[in-house]
Each structure stands twice: as C-alpha cells, then as structure tokens.
C-alpha cells in the first residue's frame, strides 16, 4: 500500500479562504479519480462540512487526562507533586495533594509513578471527532468543546485517527487534505508537521502579508515545501503590487484566485465550485484560476507520474 500524499492548507490570517481552497482542491483531486480524505483541523470553528452540504456522523468523544486522587490509597508522600513539571499538584506536608487542573498538561506522569496507585484517571470530555462524506470526498472533523482551552489535544486525536485510517482502512486514500485554523500556533504546527506539501492562503492586504510571513516562518522551521495562493487577488486593484511584493520577499507563489461571484455562490450553496456535477461557468475567472493552480500542484507534487 502506498502512503497517501498529504497537503496542508493553512495561512496565518483568518478569513482568507483556507477552507474554500481546501474543499475545492479536494473536489479537483476527486474529479481526476483520486480517493480523497479532507481533515478539518480548525477545531475551534470546524465548518468545512458546510461547504460540502454534509451532515456530521459518527460522533466520538475526545478525552483529556486529569489526576483524581483516591484518599483511601494515598499515603501523602508527595512524590507526584515533586515530579510534576507543571506544578499542577499542590502538596502540603502530611496532606493529600490537591490537583490544580488549570495548569495540568495531561502528561500522566503522576498516574504512572504513584507508588500506591492512588491516582486515578479522571477523563474529561473536551471535544469530539466526526466523520462524514459528500461528493465522494470523505471528511474527518475535530471540534473543541466551547470554553475548553486544549485544542491541541483534539488536533492530536485527529492525527491519531488519520494514522489509523491510513494504516488499516481498505479505502486507501491517495490524497489527504488538512485544513488548519488561522494562526501560527501549536494546532497549526501539528498539522503542517504531517504534510508533504503546504499551501498557505493569503489575501492582498497588509494583514494578509504580515500573517503570511509568520506562517512561512513556521513552515520553514518545520522544513516543509510550500507554495502560496493569493485569494481575492483582484481586491481593490492591489494584485500586481502584492504579487511583486511577495516575489521580492522570496515568497513562493502557486497562483492567485480573483474575486468571483461564482465562488461566493458555491460557498453559500455548499457545492464546491470545482465539483464536476456543479453547473458553473467553466470560463469563469475563479474556475480558470483553480484549474491553473491545480495543474501546478500536480506538477509540484509529482502526481503526474
């Protein structure tokens, strides 16, 4: 079995069109006969399924470990508190340690080293994963429970599921597309780390450039191959200036997508612009740009072999 090619769509700034690009890439690969899995790793706002008119299925809970101390078994030795790197166990001499859950990293060290086995795992539900399918594209989605802070745990759970799927599933995906959250934080890093190719999506504004530079810094740190898509490139007529600016900053460009009503319509309808079955204008500006970008991706990732 051949390992699927993993493409990560990211971009630093929010609202640049990461999910729109991810969904359309998925559709274009599928149109060419590839078996595609789209992973939504924007766990605080997972919404890729809306752009595919899909329904969430197979809800599964994601747990986070917190220590719970059994008062009967604890001999108050304090070994757990002494060794807790986050200092998440408050131990006063001759007293039972008190877990301070807000600083607990969930590493389970206390649980493993307690000589009396007095630490139980209190598994807290902090979010969910789902699967779905639409237009012959399979989806894997993570969702963080509102008010919970540990989004990286959900992303990790997604990556574990992905590993299981690519290892054991008979479907044998050819392409996995990872859609990240905005920002250049640990959730995004985890996803980029799993990718063969990284596509940051930006827009021709100062905000777009600033956040793009930040995400490229992260991509370079992780030593990944990337090429940028400039979305809404016809916005306010800055396209040429912006593309030149990126070139002068030695930023690799894959292509640009102009403002296009067809894209907006497809977005609202939940049918990707590049979906074969969609009756869209095949000569539209958005349609043409996506096709050009797709050809360059095929060449870039050696998909043509």
């Amino acid at each position, binding site marked *: 079995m051949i390992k699927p090619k993993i493409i990560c769509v990211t971009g630093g700034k929010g609202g640049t069109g990461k999910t729109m690009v991810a969904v359309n890439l998925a559709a274009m690969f599928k149109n060419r006969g590839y078996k595609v899995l789209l992973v939504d790793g924007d766990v605080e706002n997972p919404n890729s399924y809306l752009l595919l008119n899909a329904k969430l299925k197979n809800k599964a809970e994601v747990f986070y470990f917190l220590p719970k101390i059994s008062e009967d078994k604890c001999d108050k030795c304090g070994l757990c508190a002494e060794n807790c790197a986050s*200092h998440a166990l*408050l131990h006063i001499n001759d007293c039972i340690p*008190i877990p*301070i859950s*807000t*600083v607990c990293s969930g590493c389970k060290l206390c649980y493993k080293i307690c000589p009396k086995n007095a630490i139980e795992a209190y598994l807290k539900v902090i979010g969910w994963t789902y699967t779905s399918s639409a237009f012959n594209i399979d989806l894997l989605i993570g969702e963080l429970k509102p008010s919970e802070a540990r989004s990286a745990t959900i992303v990790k759970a997604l990556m574990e599921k992905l590993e299981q799927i690519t290892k054991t599933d008979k479907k044998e995906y050819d392409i996995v597309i990872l859609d990240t959250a905005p920002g250049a934080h640990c959730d995004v890093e985890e996803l980029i780390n799993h990718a063969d190719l990284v596509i940051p999506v930006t827009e021709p504004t100062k905000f777009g450039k600033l956040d793009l530079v930040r995400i490229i810094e992260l991509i370079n740190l992780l030593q990944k191959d990337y090429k940028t898509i400039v979305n809404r490139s016809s916005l306010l007529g800055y396209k040429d200036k912006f593309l030149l600016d990126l070139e002068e900053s030695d930023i690799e460009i894959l292509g640009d997508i102009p403002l296009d009503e067809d894209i907006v319509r497809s977005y609202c309808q939940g049918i990707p612009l590049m979906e074969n079955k969609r009756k869209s204008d095949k000569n539209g500006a958005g349609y043409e740009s996506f096709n050009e970008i797709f050809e360059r991706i095929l060449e870039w990732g050696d998909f043509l072999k």
Partner: protein
Amino acid sequence: MIKIAIPTCGNGGLNEVMNKRFGRCDTFTFVTIENNQISEVFSVGNHAKSEAGGVGIQATQIVGNHKANEVIVDFLGPNAANSLKALNIKIYQSPGGELTVKELINLRLGEKLELISSANVEAHQGMGRGQGYRR
C-alpha cells in the same frame, strides 16, 4: 492564633518591605499573632521565584507547609489564588505602596485590610523585571 504569611523583599522580617509579587517574592515572612500581639516572626526563602511556571502553586506550598492561615498580598495571580483557596487560606489585599511587614500587620490587626477571593492580575504578570498590572 493566626499565622500570617507576607511576600517580602531581601531576607524578610518585620522591618522589611512587602514584595509586590506573590509567587516571585524573595522571601516569605511569617508572623504569628496571639492575643492581638506578635508572638513569633521568621522568614523563609522562596525557591520557586525564578522558575518558568507554576510559581503561584509552589509559593502557596511554602506558605501552607509553614502552616499559615492568612496571607497579605499586593499582586496575586490566578494559580496562586486558586491554590490558596484550595487550602482555605484567607487572602488580604494590601492597600499598595511601600509598606513594611510591621505596618501591614498593624493594618491587619486594626481590621483595615480587605479580604479578596480571586486573582487581581492575569497569569504570568509577575514574570520579568516589571511589576504586575493590577486590574
């Protein structure tokens, strides 16, 4: 009997000024009050002061291990506040300024200090050389 812990500068003691940072103070000065009189004073070094994180919890451990049942603080972060509450240690708010331990104890005995129940600064405000920012 009440035993009050106060974050202090230098070696601590009755004439030393309070350290505005709880978790990252140099020393804790412990003052025992019996029949409205000071009966014992000693200070203990704060080994947690230069650690990267979780200092509020470790500092509370020092306070708890020396059996204080009250603290007087200036800036207090969320981890320290939660830890002190978990140990049922009363938290009194200093009025601010450069007050000595003795002055603060007098204010406490005169019931001039306000009891607080939660943090008054965000996490990690005590890091670096600057002072915390009070809400």
